[in-house]
């Protein structure tokens, strides 16, 4: 028996590997099949559920007339602005807070409170102050990203072993040099994982903010489509939102985080698996 198994293995192994590679596609295929079957049998009105073909066509249409590109660019531009601001202010404030205990004690109740209302909760107030448009969306993203990056930076700075800082100091490094060569690299893994999850929250907040608070963007595209019961555009928009979110995480944030973790390796194995 056991002699037979190895003989059959090369072909089977390859088959296994192909199956293993294709597995992630299975749920998508299943959903598409269920959708197609349901649509064939029930024939729902297009406003309720369009056919797969209609969604593919509408992606082609809105991509062709430039609407899709313009909306995607508007959303990404806002995300870039808001997230850069959030990361910059979050890291700077995080360093100041992490280094001085007094500031940290004073600010932490405020941070807990404002973190609890970060993002979309500001929308009604800010519509009045900033008007509908890019500034509003950028504010909402900044607000969301800031608190996550800030809290992670504070944690990262506080967790850098003091011995390391004192060691570099004892060798004659100034305050700035210590910050640059010890504290920053030490805190970097935390900062980066903060940026990664901040962008996850930020992307959601952006779509929500655009639903009511912007004249353009993917969120607005979906919301406007809802008014005309164009569910084909809504579904197409949702799929595109998901693809962009995954692409950002996979090809930009994940590699950066991995490289930092490998280089400065302060994150424990458990955390690596958890993230």
């Amino acid at each position: 028996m056991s002699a037979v198994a190895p003989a059959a293995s090369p072909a089977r192994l390859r088959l296994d590997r192909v199956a293993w590679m294709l597995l992630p596609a299975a749920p998508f295929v299943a959903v598409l099949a269920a959708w197609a079957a349901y649509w064939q049998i029930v024939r729902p009105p297009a406003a309720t559920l369009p056919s797969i073909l209609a969604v593919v066509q509408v992606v082609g249409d809105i991509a062709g007339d430039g609407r899709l590109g313009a909306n995607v660019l508007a959303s990404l531009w806002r995300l870039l602005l808001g997230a850069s601001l959030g990361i910059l202010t979050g890291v700077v404030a995080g360093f100041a807070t992490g280094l001085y205990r007094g500031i940290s004690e004073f600010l932490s109740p405020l941070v807990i409170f404002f973190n609890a209302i970060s993002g979309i909760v500001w929308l009604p107030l800010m519509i009045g102050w900033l008007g509908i448009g890019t500034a509003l969306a950028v504010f909402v993203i900044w607000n969301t990203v800031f608190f996550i990056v800030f809290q992670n930076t504070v944690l990262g700075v506080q967790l850098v072993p003091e011995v390391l800082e004192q060691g570099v100091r004892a060798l004659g490094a100034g305050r700035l040099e210590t910050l640059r060569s010890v504290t920053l690299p030490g805190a970097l893994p935390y900062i980066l994982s903060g940026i990664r999850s901040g962008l996850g929250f930020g992307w959601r907040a952006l779509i929500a903010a655009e639903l009511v608070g912007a004249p353009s963007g993917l969120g607005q595209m979906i919301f406007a489509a809802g008014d005309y019961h164009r569910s084909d555009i809504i579904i197409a928009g949702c799929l595109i939102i998901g693809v962009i979110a995954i692409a950002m995480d996979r090809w930009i944030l994940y590699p950066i985080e991995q490289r930092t973790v490998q280089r400065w390796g302060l994150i424990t194995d458990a955390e690596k698996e958890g993230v």
Partner: protein
Amino acid sequence: MSTAVAPSQVRLISPLGLLQKLSGLKVLLPFAVLVAIWWAIKVGAGITDEVLVSPATAFAAFVRLVTTGVLSEYASTSLRMIGACAMFSLAVGVPIGFAVGVNRYAARSCEGFLRFLQGVSGIAWLPLVIIWLGLSYKTTLAVVIYTLIVPIVFNTMIGVRTIPENYVLALRSLGAGRLRLATDVYLPGALPSIVVGLRLGMGYGWRALIAAEMLVHSGGLGDLIFSARTFNQIDRIIVGMIVIGCLYIIVDRLIVQPIENLTIARWGVLRK
């Protein structure tokens, strides 16, 4: 003897009480400073009530909303909603996570799909769900459950996957059935990860709830602050925001964090 004990007890309590009072002040001080700045800006720059109300006006609005029962009505709608969604998502999401997590092929096939679902926030589906279910609480319910359940399923799955296979094999060889495996290996082993999922899901879900309430207009704190926008009632908006923040902190500190601490204390899987 007993008379000798009493004074020492008193002496023990009083510095502790003082310390507690001080720490209470420390928490309140930053807010006092903030309110002072808010008031100064309001008065100093002469801003109209249409743009920013004074803290006193906001407090008056708070008192009015409380005494008329409006606030508790809206707040309880939101709280019931998030509570129901969290219960449902845990009850359904954890078993799904187990089912997917125990089989490596199932886990492999679902991981990408779950990541994708997490990328499309629940609120993005809102316009479609409105078409399907109308402008009712059902729409809000669907969106918030979607938002909550995905991280719970995902993290349960990850939690089950990281349990060393030997534990399962050991119990099996001793004759344990599937149910026994689930309660004695998968549940305790995956619990810390499930709690992480719940925490993340609550963070996403609470925001999705507020956003959905704003657009669905069928009660809830999101509806309260967004409708107040229409009538330019800045006082109501600010009160609503403060209540949303406080409720979230209370839910997080009193319910989610104790669960997390209990889990860590009991099964001590977390690092540091």
